[in-house]
């Protein structure tokens, strides 16, 4: 099979701000040469060490060692300005072997309808809605399998360059990472007295008399709402004792949707995402039209000549 990578296809890089920024490095060596990226890599490396993510051990004979690579990203704020430089050491999950290095990989995510239902209820009861962000969420997950990986390039232990890492915690890129994080977080919530909803497994409910807390989990994004501000603070503190997480204040941005306080309620919009798609299609300055489809539009599967760039078509359609 020819994958998109082999085909030479790359997601177009949207370089709106690239003028003042250090460009995304191609290799970890060029990244180490740039002070911005070097600092980001060192931050990631020390986070991995302080988290006791792995033990360095001599390479066990016959073990599959999962390789990894550095990923570099500019992180932007919701308004499009630069937030920070981010470097992440990820494992190449495709070098894992099923049954040996991983078993189950499914991890539930919250349904958008659940989010809107919970927000509607919170609004109608005037509850505070806060947003939390878990730092390095996937690194919290504990692994049930033994997985070996190579040392991060550029940060190889000089005393033991041929050693490999035996993972204690899950790492980004591992096939089971999302599932490991989900089950770790869910089991902690159950300890705190939350109940997992049957109709959406990413919704957790806490109820004690009149005190109620709803928690929505979308991988490492959390939306929390509670019947009183005191209860909300109490819950956040209880969660922070177990995981390092930031309280981002009242809900403003979730799943790529910006949420604004409005005189009538909450206003949810996907302006930034729409702009990104238009940019990708090269249609930022196109003439707008009032409806999305023609009243006569009935397109048959076999009408007209084939599109010259089918990948572009698929990429745009998939983004909608």
């Amino acid at each position, binding site marked *: 099979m020819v994958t998109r990578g082999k085909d030479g296809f790359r997601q177009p890089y949207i370089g709106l701000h690239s003028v003042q920024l250090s460009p995304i490095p191609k290799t970890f060596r060029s990244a180490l040469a740039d002070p911005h990226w070097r600092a980001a890599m060192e931050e990631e490396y020390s986070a991995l060490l302080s988290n006791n993510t792995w033990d360095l051990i001599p390479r066990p004979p016959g073990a599959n060692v999962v390789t990894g690579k550095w990923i570099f990203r500019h992180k932007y704020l919701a308004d499009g300005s630069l937030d920070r430089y981010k470097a992440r050491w990820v494992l190449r999950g495709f070098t894992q072997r099923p049954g040996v290095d991983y078993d189950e990989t499914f991890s539930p995510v919250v349904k958008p309808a659940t989010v809107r239902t919970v927000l509607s209820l919170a609004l109608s009861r005037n509850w505070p809605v806060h947003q939390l962000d878990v730092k390095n969420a996937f690194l919290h997950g504990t692994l049930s399998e033994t997985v070996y990986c190579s040392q991060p390039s550029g940060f190889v232990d000089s005393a033991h360059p041929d050693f490999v890492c035996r993972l204690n915690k899950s790492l980004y890129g591992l096939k089971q990472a999302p599932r490991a994080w989900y089950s770790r977080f869910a089991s902690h919530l159950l300890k705190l007295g939350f109940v997992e909803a049957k109709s959406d497994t990413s919704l957790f*409910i806490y109820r004690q008399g009149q005190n109620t807390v709803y928690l929505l989990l979308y991988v490492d994004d959390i939306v929390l709402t509670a019947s009183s501000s005191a209860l909300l603070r109490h819950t956040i503190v209880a969660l922070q004792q177990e995981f390092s997480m930031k309280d981002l204040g009242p809900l403003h941005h979730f799943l790529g949707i910006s949420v604004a306080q409005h005189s009538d309620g909450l206003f949810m919009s996907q302006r930034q995402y729409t702009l990104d798609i238009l940019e990708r299609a090269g249609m930022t300055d196109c003439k707008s039209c009032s409806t999305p489809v023609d009243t006569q539009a009935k397109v048959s599967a076999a009408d007209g000549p084939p599109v010259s760039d089918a990948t572009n078509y698929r990429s745009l359609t998939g983004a909608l």
Partner: protein
Amino acid sequence: MHDPRKPHLSAVKRILRYLRGTLDHGLLLRHGAASELTVYNDADWAECPDTRKSTSGYAVFLGDNLVSWSSKRQNTVSRSSAEAEYRAVANGVAEACWLRQLLHELHHPLQKSTLVYCDNVSAVYLSSNPVQHQRTKHVEIDLHFVRERVSTGDVRVLHVPTTSQFADIFTKGLPTSVFAEFRSSLNVMSSDAPTAGGVRK
């Protein structure tokens, strides 16, 4: 998807041009009470020119807020518009059942039954009348779970004139004026739009 043609690309571009004009639009969730579920269902019979399958769409409101919607081609061919509409009703009722269950788990059980609006009189009859019709005998038993829901009182299926059938927006291309009216009824509006209530009810 596997063999895109020029007309398909122009359809995609039309959508993008629409998006270009609605950058500041979004969904508004209001403060109002969330005491009932309302479902609008619609189907466009035999719309697909290749397979003659129908398109069904629904919009589910919790109180005044739109919480769930769908627009999907049905996976079987319908023999009549009533059948297509009935399938759409079944999809909408399934979603409403899930939401009722969800609200129950959120300790917010609904006292009122869910109102399901459909603009096809035959489909409304079909949902309450257990008599087997000559023309609908092929409709699968599993679709008739709607009848069960109706008989338990969870759901009431009512007729609504096409002019206030908001789910129309999910099944067919509409003229600009109707489209804009339905869109604002779905609480989709520009961020600086006047905040008066929509035309619902």
